[in-house]
């Protein structure tokens, strides 16, 4: 299925909310299966669930539409 969302687009969405984060995004299958790693000092002291929720919130509605699958890894440093 064609989609307009690219890894770079997702990267910019996260950086818009977490400007000082390191964000790496790639594709692992097709054009709508993404993998992302986010390293952000603000994750410090937060549970994995809370860290992922912050990233999902930054991606907004894209999580429900264009992004079919997202393999996500987060850490504070």
């Amino acid at each position: 299925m064609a989609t307009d969302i690219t890894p770079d687009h997702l990267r910019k969405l996260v950086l818009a909310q977490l400007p000082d984060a390191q964000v790496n995004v790639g594709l692992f299958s097709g054009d709508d299966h993404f993998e992302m790693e986010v390293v952000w000092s603000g994750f410090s002291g937060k549970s994995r669930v809370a860290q992922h929720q912050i990233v999902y919130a930054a991606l907004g509605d894209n999580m429900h539409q264009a992004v079919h699958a997202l393999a996500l890894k987060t850490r504070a440093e």
Partner: protein
Amino acid sequence: MTDTVHQQIDNLVHEQDIVLFMKGTPQFPQCGFSQRVAAMLEQQGISYAAVNVLLDPAIREGIKSYTDWPTIPQLYVKAEFVGGCDIITEMHESGELAELLAPFKK
């Protein structure tokens, strides 16, 4: 409407110690991510309840707002949300999953 579904989900996660919301069933998973989490739970030698969200569109959508988590599968232990496929995989690899589930071994 949403409140009813959330109440229904709340009842489900309190019914058993370990509850997995997934696409398909442990025997016939309908999604690779659900399959991976079911397989990791099998390895732990625990029994758990699996809820096939594909059978109920209201639960399939409701579970996402219940936890503020946009994806399925979702694992609950003692009614607490533990994580989706990525988090369970990390916990499986680090040994945290075995530790968390040890009290529930058969």
